[in-house]
């Protein structure tokens, strides 16, 4: 039985901010009276992470991933609930012994001293974590080899490119061999080869050195290649927690059908027909989805209906659909494989309209 390394229990984060009406008048008004607003960034969320896992923390922008990560590291205190690490540390208290065992990289902030070469920051890290010289050199060389970045070691960090800096940030975060690594969008803005190097690096850190990794990323490639388990968050609530296979099965086993109607009347008709078919999930095309479309796209976009159907039923379903409808109702019809992004965005969209609780099991076939 592997040890539970992170235990998140009923974690809640509510930020307090102020609302300000736009413009100068708003600024003047808010100078005197401020209207406080509570942002519920994370609503009571619980999960456990076992040693050696590679977790993908996913969700659309503003879902609360970074907030979650910050609370898990101890960077910000939760409004309520606890995050316990290694079975004994309350992370919000940041005991020193705990801090020695974690590493963190935030794609948007830098830890390296901008004016000094990365090597200096590495040396500081060596002193802080008391890494013996031989080990320090061995680890550093291994990392530098992997990234092929020896030549940039003595250049001020300020003068490195985004990708080079990111690689150095990762090296810094891993030099003291943390047991848990928290990564917030480490591949943001990187080209495919740099992103691939980083993925290789992380995969190795996880498999060879048994570092538990919690990663957030918007790039499905990162998720597909690295994470065996994903935790989906939307609007601060957990909507899925389980193996990526659950999502993968749907990617493999389903087809996406996009029907474009000739006019709004036919669209309603088509939608009715689709809904009456077995095994079909409407992804987009409900009247409630229309609000998301821009007015300028009215003709092209509003007339399309997207639905997912199990691969084995795709022939039967389209046949029924075409038989029931008049040829003039349909302007276009495409059948394609589903991508992992399609499945994720379907889940995110559903979570907006229905309460998240039941999504856990229904959307992905819940292997919780």
């Amino acid at each position: 039985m592997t040890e539970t390394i992170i235990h998140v229990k009923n974690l809640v984060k509510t930020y307090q901010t102020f609302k300000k009406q736009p413009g100068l008048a708003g600024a003047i008004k808010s100078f005197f009276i401020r209207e406080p607003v509570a942002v519920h960034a994370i609503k009571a969320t619980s999960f456990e992470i076992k040693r050696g896992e590679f977790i993908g923390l996913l969700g659309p922008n503003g879902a609360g991933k970074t907030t979650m990560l910050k609370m898990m590291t101890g960077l910000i205190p939760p409004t309520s609930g606890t995050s316990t690490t290694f079975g004994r540390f309350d992370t919000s208290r940041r005991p020193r012994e705990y801090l020695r065992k974690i590493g963190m990289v935030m794609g948007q902030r830098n830890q390296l001293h901008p004016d000094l070469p990365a090597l200096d920051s590495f040396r500081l890290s060596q002193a802080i974590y008391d890494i013996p010289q031989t080990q320090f050199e061995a680890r550093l060389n291994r990392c530098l080899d992997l990234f092929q970045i020896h030549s940039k070691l003595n250049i001020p960090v300020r003068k490195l490119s985004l990708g080079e800096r990111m690689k150095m940030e990762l090296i810094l975060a891993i030099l003291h061999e943390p047991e848990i690594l928290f990564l917030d969008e480490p591949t943001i803005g990187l080209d495919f080869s740099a992103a691939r190097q980083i993925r290789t690096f992380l995969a190795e850190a996880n498999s060879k050195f048994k570092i538990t990794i919690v990663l957030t990323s918007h790039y499905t490639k990162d998720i597909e290649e690295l994470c065996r388990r994903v935790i989906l968050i939307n609007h601060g609530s957990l909507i899925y927690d389980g193996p990526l296979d659950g999502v993968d099965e749907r990617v493999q086993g389903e087809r996406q059908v996009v029907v474009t109607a000739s006019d709004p009347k036919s669209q309603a008709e088509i939608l009715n027909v689709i809904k009456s078919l077995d095994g079909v999930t409407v992804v987009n095309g409900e009247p409630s989805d229309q609000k998301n479309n821009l007015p300028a796209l009215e003709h092209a976009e509003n007339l399309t209906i997207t639905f997912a159907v199990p691969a084995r039923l795709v022939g039967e379903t389209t046949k029924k659909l075409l038989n029931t409808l008049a040829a003039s109702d349909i302007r276009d019809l495409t059948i394609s494989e589903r991508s992992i992004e399609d499945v994720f965005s379907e889940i995110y969209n559903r979570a907006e309209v229905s309460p998240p609780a039941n999504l856990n099991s229904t959307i992905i076939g819940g292997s919780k």
Partner: protein
Amino acid sequence: MADIRVLIRASAVHFGQCLQAALMYRSALAIFVVSEAFAYAGIIAFWYGAANSNPNQAFYKPMALVLYFCLVSFHHGIQHHASSRDIGSDIRLGKLSYSIVRPFPFLLQAGLRSVAFTLTYSLLLAPLVVAAFIFVPDLWTTFCAGILPGAVWQYPVAAAIGLTAGWLVRMVIGVLAFDMAQIWGPDTCFIALYYAASGSVFPVDLLPVWALGIVKWTPMYYMVGFPVLTLMGRLNPVQFQTEALQGCVVVTLTFVILALMWRRGIKVFEAIGI
């Protein structure tokens, strides 16, 4: 014990790197020193003139005034450089984030950074001082005559109290950034008080006795007035001891306030959105 050893080693490395970083801004520092030289010249000329037109001030004869303001400028510059003003932006712009999750106390880091910058400043100032002694006629004799031998051990104590007090006050203002978006309001208030109570714009012991009594309970007095008056022999040994003690009380109180504000601040710290 091992922890302390690690902490000391890390502090040494960090301190060395702060020094390096400070020295990397060499053109900025050079310009700073030149502008400082002009400021010194201006202040000295002004007070020289003022002293000549008003010879009634019993102690502050022209050369004493010049001496006073030479010393003030030096202390003012050091205070300015040692200031912990960066702390506010560290908090607001999220630089604090990584420091919080590393086993190396942030306040220690900030302190070391200030010491490093002070040191760089003092080093850069040295040539300026040497040049002044070489090129200003008789400066050596008049300047040194104004400084009493008894101050040799008193002055370092006074200067240390002053620097600590100054650093702590700026930290307290910086830490306000946990609660407010802009700390320049409190910072401006501080500067006003600094001008009034520190002795940076007029010899502070010219204040009426009652005002001086109040001023000596503020950190600003210790930032500049106290070390300068000590060096000039304006305080007798008993006065010096009393004020040094009083200074220690002020420093301790400021430190307690800072520690409380820091502990509270770190609990409400929301890092930065992204």
